[in-house]
C-alpha cells in the first residue's frame, strides 16, 4: 500500500473497521512511513479527546418524568402495534403526529419495576452472543494486547476489569466489545479456543468473595453453553459452542486469574 491508499483508510482503521488483511498492510506501511504515522497519531489523539471531552447529555429528571407521564397516559389509549416489518423505515411517517395531543390521563399505575420482566441471564447472553457472531459485530477493539484492551474498556465503563491473554493455555484473547445486559453496559472479552469463539461478559459482582468457591452454574440455551463464575469482585459469564466442561473450567480459571490448558 502507498500513502494515498493508506490515508483514506486511517479513519476506519482506528475504528477497528478494516479487515485483518488490509489492517496488516496498513500496519506495515506505518512502520516505514513517518508521515502516515504522524497522521495516524493525530487521528488517534483527536479521537481520544472526543471520547474524553464530549459531554454525554443525560436526560434531566424532569424530562424523564414527563416522558413517563406522557407514555403512561398514551398507553391507556394505544395498543402496541404488532407489525412484522424487518426494517424500521416506517417510523418515518408522522404516524403519531396526533399522539401528543391525546388528553393526558395520568393513570397511577405502580409496580412497573424494570426487573419484573427481566430475561433469564443465560437466554440474554446467548442472544447477545449469537447476534454478535451472526451480525459480524464480534469485536470493537481487536487486540490480544491487554494493555490496549483494558484501557479501551475502562474508557467506556464505570468499572475496570482484569484482562489477560491466555494464549499460552490455548485461549488467545481476540478482542473486546461493549454489550448491554439487564440494561447496563457490560465488558465483553472475546477469546478463541481452536475454532470456538468464547464471549465472556464481565461485570461488577459485590458478592464475589462469598461465591468464589462455589461451582459455576452451567446452562445450555439453544445449543450454546453458558457458565458463570465469580471472582476478583466480578461476575464472569461465558458463552460458547465449546463443550460445557471445558467452558466451565475456563470461566472458573478466568475468575481466579489462573487458566490452565484443557489438554
Amino acid at each position, binding site marked *: 500500500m502507498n500513502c494515498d491508499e493508506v490515508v483514506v483508510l486511517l479513519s476506519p482503521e482506528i475504528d477497528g473497521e478494516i479487515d485483518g488483511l488490509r489492517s496488516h498492510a496498513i500496519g506495515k506501511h506505518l512502520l516505514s512511513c513517518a508521515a502516515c504515522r504522524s497522521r495516524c497519531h493525530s*487521528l488517534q489523539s483527536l479521537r481520544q479527546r472526543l471520547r474524553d*471531552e464530549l459531554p454525554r*447529555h443525560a436526560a434531566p429528571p424532569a424530562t424523564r418524568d414527563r416522558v413517563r407521564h406522557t*407514555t403512561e397516559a398514551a398507553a391507556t389509549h394505544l395498543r402496541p402495534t404488532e407489525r412484522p416489518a424487518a426494517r*424500521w423505515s416506517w417510523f418515518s411517517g408522522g404516524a*403519531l403526529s396526533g*399522539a401528543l395531543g391525546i388528553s393526558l390521563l395520568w393513570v397511577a399505575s405502580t409496580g412497573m419495576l424494570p426487573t419484573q420482566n427481566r430475561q433469564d441471564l443465560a437466554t440474554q447472553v446467548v442472544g447477545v452472543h449469537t447476534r454478535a457472531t451472526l451480525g459480524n459485530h464480534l469485536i470493537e477493539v481487536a487486540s490480544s494486547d491487554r494493555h490496549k484492551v483494558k484501557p479501551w474498556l475502562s474508557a467506556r465503563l464505570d468499572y475496570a476489569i482484569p484482562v489477560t491473554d491466555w494464549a499460552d493455555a490455548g485461549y488467545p484473547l481476540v478482542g473486546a466489545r461493549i454489550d448491554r445486559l439487564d*440494561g447496563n453496559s457490560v465488558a465483553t472479552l472475546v477469546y478463541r479456543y481452536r475454532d470456538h469463539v468464547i464471549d465472556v461478559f464481565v461485570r461488577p459482582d459485590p458478592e464475589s468473595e462469598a461465591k468464589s468457591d462455589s461451582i459455576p452454574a452451567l446452562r445450555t440455551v439453544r445449543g450454546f453453553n453458558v457458565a458463570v463464575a465469580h471472582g476478583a469482585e466480578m461476575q464472569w459469564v461465558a458463552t460458547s459452542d465449546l463443550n460445557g466442561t471445558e467452558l466451565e473450567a475456563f470461566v472458573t480459571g478466568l475468575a481466579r486469574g489462573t487458566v490452565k490448558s484443557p489438554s
Partner: protein
Amino acid sequence: MPEHADFERLVMVHLDAGYNLARWLARDSQDAEDVVQDACLRAMKYMGSLKGQDGRAWFLTIVRRAFYDWLAHNRPAQALRSEGADIDALIDEADGPEQMLQHKTERLALADAVAALPLSFREAIVLREIEGLSYKEIARVADVPIGTVMSRLARARRLLQASTMLRTLSGAEPGVQQ
C-alpha cells in the same frame, strides 16, 4: 399494565442515549425534550417490532427520525441547508489567538467544534464517539450505506482537525496535511 412494563425495560433504559443524540442534533435542551417525547411515543407504538434487536440502536433510529421530522416542521429553512453550511462558521469563528482566549477550556472548544459540524457529520461523530456504535449500527440508525458512514466520519474528523481552533489548542500537534 404489561405494555408499560415492557416500555420501561426496552425504551426507558435507553432514554439517556436518546436524549443525548437529540440534544446534540437539536443543540437545545428544550427542543431535545420535545424530540425525545415524540420518539418515546413512537417507540411505544412500535415496540412490538423490536424482536431480539439491540434496543439502543432501535431507539436511536427512532429519535433520529423524530428529530428530522421535528426539524422539517419547526425549522424548514435549516432542514434544507443542513448539509455542509455550518462548517464555514466554525472556521470563521476561529481566526485569531485572541478569540482562543475567550474559550475557557479546550473541552468547550472541542464540543463547540462538534456542535458546529453539519448535521450528518455531527450525528455520525456522536453515534461513534459517544455511543460507541459500529459502522454497521450507525448505517442502520442513519439509514445510509456503510461506505457513507465511513466517508462521513473521515470527513468529520478532517474538518475537526483542520479547524484552526483545534490545531492551535492541541499545541504542536499538526493536522493532516494533504
